[in-house]
């Protein structure tokens, strides 16, 4: 039964026998029962659809119990080594990566990969997704060289299956570019970012999340190369897109706010940098668990700015 009125700006999602409205940030208190006893299949479907939605919205802490419940249900319905069960392990691992729980993510990816290779074969595109994600986990850990072989495997498999201009190939190419960028292999990284961007813009148009992520990364690469005007232009483009597509409170929006703050500081615009760091840090602290690497990095950046402001003008309050 539909519990919420349908009106412009209201998106509805049926989930675990509940209705969620998206007018305000989604949280557990907005969940209200709508069905008496949905079938296990309906429960599983709603659980993972809703968890995917929460993950995309950056509401990580609410996604975890849903993924865990979906995984238990899938294990009971299809068995521990079914492809669907492996997919849920993968999705929970992606969530753990975003939460900074890298060891748990690695264990889940390993198990999912084993199942996927056994049931689908070593060159299946789903296997390529797991290679992509294993590379992504290494990226999040800062182990860029360790992630490169995983990313190269994902590109090779998917390119073979889908051709060089498919958007899923572009996602693999962009992930590889970020791993090369982290190692200072800037020429190859820039060429790959541009290749991925061209595909995303052709397929999805200029206003898409994939475009925003790659503009942010290309901006960071330009900043590292000292091309600050170009970097700032790209950051501002990425930020405008993220604010429009994800909202001002999404942790991915905070990533670009932090990066733009670093750039502003580098260009001597300290007041602007301070305000951007404060916005980024507040979002990270609201959406990520305490001690998360992104919180730590952003806080250190902010503290360094405050210290330098203090050194240059000792009368400022600490």
């Amino acid at each position, binding site marked *: 039964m539909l519990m919420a009125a349908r009106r412009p700006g209201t998106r509805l999602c049926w989930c675990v026998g509940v209705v969620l409205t998206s007018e305000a940030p989604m949280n557990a208190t907005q969940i209200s029962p709508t069905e008496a006893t949905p079938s296990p*299949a309906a429960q*599983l*479907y709603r659980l*993972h659809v809703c968890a*995917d939605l929460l*993950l995309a919205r950056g509401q990580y802490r609410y996604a975890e119990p849903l993924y865990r419940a*979906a995984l238990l249900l*899938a294990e009971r*319905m*299809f068995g521990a080594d*079914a*492809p*669907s069960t492996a*997919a*849920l392990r*993968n*999705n929970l691992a*992606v969530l753990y*990566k*975003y939460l900074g729980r890298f060891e748990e993510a690695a264990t889940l990816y390993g198990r999912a990969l084993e199942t996927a290779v056994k049931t689908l074969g070593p060159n299946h595109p*789903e296997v390529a*997704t*797991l290679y*992509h*994600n294993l*590379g*992504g*986990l290494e*990226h*999040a850990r800062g182990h860029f060289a360790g*992630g490169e072989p995983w990313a190269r495997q994902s590109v090779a498999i998917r390119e073979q299956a889908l051709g060089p201009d498919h958007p*899923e190939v572009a*996602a693999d190419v*962009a*992930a590889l570019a*970020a*791993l090369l*960028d*982290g190692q200072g292999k800037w020429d190859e990284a820039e060429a790959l970012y541009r290749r991925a961007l061209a595909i995303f813009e052709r397929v999805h148009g200029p206003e898409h999340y994939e475009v925003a*992520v790659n503009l*942010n*990364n290309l901006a*960071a*690469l330009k*900043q590292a190369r000292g091309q600050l005007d170009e970097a700032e232009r790209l950051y501002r483009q990425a930020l405008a897109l993220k604010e429009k597509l994800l909202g001002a409170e999404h942790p*991915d929006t905070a*990533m670009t706010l*932090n*990066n733009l703050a*670093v*750039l502003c*500081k*580098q260009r001597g615009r300290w007041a602007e940098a301070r305000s951007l760091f404060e916005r980024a840090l507040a979002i990270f602290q609201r959406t990520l668990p305490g001690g998360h690497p*992104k919180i730590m*990095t*952003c806080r*250190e*950046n902010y503290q*360094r*700015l405050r210290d330098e402001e203090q050194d240059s003008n000792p009368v400022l309050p600490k």
Partner: protein
Amino acid sequence: MEPRTEEKRQHNARAIPKHEKKRKLQIVKLEERIAPRLAANHNETLMSDG
């Protein structure tokens, strides 16, 4: 008037597309219908001012 009614009935019968008559039930496995899609993560750069 009679022949005209008959003609109309025959015309309606011919209007039913062939594929409508030949449609068969398809069996889709439950797991395929509700299967989650594998999510891919994004490698996004976070700058450190170090």
